[in-house]
Structure formats: C-alpha cells, structure tokens
C-alpha cells in the first residue's frame, strides 16, 4: 500500500472534519464558560454584571467610528471565510485528465472519461466481476485510480486481484508509459445476490 493509493480510497473529509470539530469546540467552550461565569467562578461580582457591560457601551459611544470599522471588518472576514468554507465543502471531487506530455506545442493529455470507460470495460471482462466503476482522482500530474468492483457470489478474490493487476492495470500502465499507477480497489462481495432476492 502506498500513501497515494490509500488516499484514493475515498474523498478526504479531513478539512470538513477539522472545521466542524473546531466550531463544535468553540460552541462547547462558550457555553461552559458562560455557565461558569454565571455560577460566580470568575468572581461573584462579575456574575451580577449585565451581558453588555457598561464599560463596553461606554467605549463604543466614545469611539463610534472605530467600533463601526471593526464591526465591518469582522463582517467581511466572516462572510469571506464562510463562503470559502461552504464552497470548498460543496465542490465535487475533481476528475482529472491525464497529462502524457507537457512539452510546449506538443502537450498531450487523455480525457478522464476515455480512460475511465476503457478501464471499466476491461475490468468488467474479469471472471467474477459483475459490474465495475472507475474514476481518476487527484490532479493532472499525479492522478490515482479508484476502482469499485462488484463481485458475484463465490468469486475468488485472489483470482480477481491477479487479473486486475496482471491485465487491467498492466494495460493502463503501459498505455500511460508509467511503472505504477496508485490504485484503490473497493470490492463489494457477493453483490449480485442483492439484486435478486433469494426465495427458498
């Protein structure tokens, strides 16, 4: 297993998880701190003060322009960060074409769908494979392949592997002229049976 083939197993949710975890921690911390503040942990006198402290209102009315610019700045930052966050998380996983030659004037790249269809058609001829789905992930220069294979009942996984590596991936490798293509293979065992309900 290589790092790149492992990364190709599924789309990474690392950034989504980090952001969601951070916002959860912020909410949790704010809630707990306010409860503690109200209990008088940070001083009994402080617990009796209003939420909008007279000191703050005093500062705002003394520096009205500065307060407005700060509020506008915070608003812009929240808007931009929130939009980047939402767009990044909604953006579909890219399907890269494969760049075979980057020489100026002789740039050659193979379209994603051409490769995916060819490898899929190849994979579906393997004995024991009822259906296959293929896509490329990563970027143009360092693509990796994701293969989903639905196996029929009683298919021998080792035989399927041997054919995947020996025939399907070997052909893809020679077509691209590379030694290795990082590949994640996802296998659905006994999948054919789920389509036809078993009646005894």
């Amino acid at each position: 297993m290589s790092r790149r083939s492992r990364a190709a197993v599924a789309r990474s949710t690392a950034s989504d998880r980090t952001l969601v975890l951070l916002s959860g921690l912020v909410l949790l911390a704010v809630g707990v701190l306010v409860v503690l503040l109200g209990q008088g942990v940070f001083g009994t006198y402080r617990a009796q003060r209003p939420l909008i402290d007279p000191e703050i209102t005093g500062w705002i009315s003394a520096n009205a322009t500065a307060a407005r610019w700060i509020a506008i700045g915070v608003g812009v930052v929240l808007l931009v960060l929130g939009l980047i966050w939402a767009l990044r998380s909604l953006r579909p996983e890219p399907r890269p074409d494969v760049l075979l030659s980057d020489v100026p004037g002789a740039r050659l790249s193979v379209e994603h769908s051409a490769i995916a269809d060819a490898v899929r058609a190849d994979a579906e001829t393997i004995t024991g494979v009822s259906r296959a789905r293929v896509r490329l992930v990563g970027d143009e220069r360092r693509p990796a392949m994701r293969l989903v294979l639905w196996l029929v009942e009683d298919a021998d996984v080792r035989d399927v592997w041997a054919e995947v590596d020996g025939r399907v991936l070997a052909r893809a490798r020679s077509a691209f002229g590379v030694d290795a293509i990082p590949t994640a293979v996802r296998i659905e065992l006994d999948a054919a049976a789920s389509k036809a309900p078993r009646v005894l």
Partner: protein
Amino acid sequence: MRFLLRLLSPLLGLVVAAVGVLLLLEVITAWVAPASSPLVVPWPSWRSALTEATWSSGTVRTIAIVVAVVGFLVVLVALVARRHDVRLTDPVPEVTVTTSPRSLARAVGHEVRSQADVVSASVVASSNKVVVKAGTLDEPDVVRQAIRERVDALFTRLPLARRPRVSISVAATKGVK
C-alpha cells in the same frame, strides 16, 4: 455519520457567511441611513434585553447550556464521521484494496445461510469483529461448531488484512423439521 458531516460542514460555513452579511448590513445601515435601521435583525431590542440580563440569570444559563450541548453534539459528529472500511491485504505496493463492513457481513451471511441446518441468520461485521446470530431446529452446539468452521474457511479464502474476531450465537428455533 459521514453523510451528516458532509451536510453539516457547508451548512456551518453558510451560517458563518450569513452572520457576516447581517453584521455588515446592520452596521452600514445604522451608519448611512439611521432612519431605516434596524433593517433585518431587531438588534435594538436585543441590546436592551442584553443590557438588563446578568450573567447569573436563568435564561442566560439555559441558553448557555443549550449552546454547550449543541457544541458537544457537533464535536461528536466530527469525531465519529470516519470511514469504517475493511482492509484487504494489498496485492502489489501501489494498490490498496478495501471492502465495506456491509459487504463483509453479506458474504458471511451467505456462507452461514448456505449451511443446511441454519433456518435464520443475521450478521453484523466490522474490521475487527463479526457477530453472527443464527437460529436452528437442530442441536445449537453442533450447528455453532459447523458455522464456525464455515466462517473460518471463508476467512481463509478471503485475504483480509486483519482477521476479525468471530462471535457466533445459535438459538434453537421451534418448528417442524
């Protein structure tokens, strides 16, 4: 849980962006055209409420507890939303092979049900544990042994990276054989 995370993440992003927009809108309206302020958010009434409420008041505490609980749930979603793939051994270094827990359970389930004296079976599988519950009209202990042998044989055929622990319970079902 991954689905929930994929839903929650852009939503939280949109919430942050919306807060930014509302803040900009209200601040600029209050500055440029004070007559039409507040525009969307009734912030003057919020402000008077917040000036009166103290940190120790019951409402503030209730809201703080709700916020903390929501935060805890969001943290939980982020921590639980990981993949539960079952790894198979890699045929060559550049290839990673996985299957889903559901697919593993399906394979084990077919194997168990193909045993003639099993009348019903349910299987729950993960990468380190497989739980089989079966019903039979015969002697449960004998059937249990037979199922164990079958599942062991399946795991010998299936090149799993890590052999899961297998727990099998067989109950006698009433009925005519």
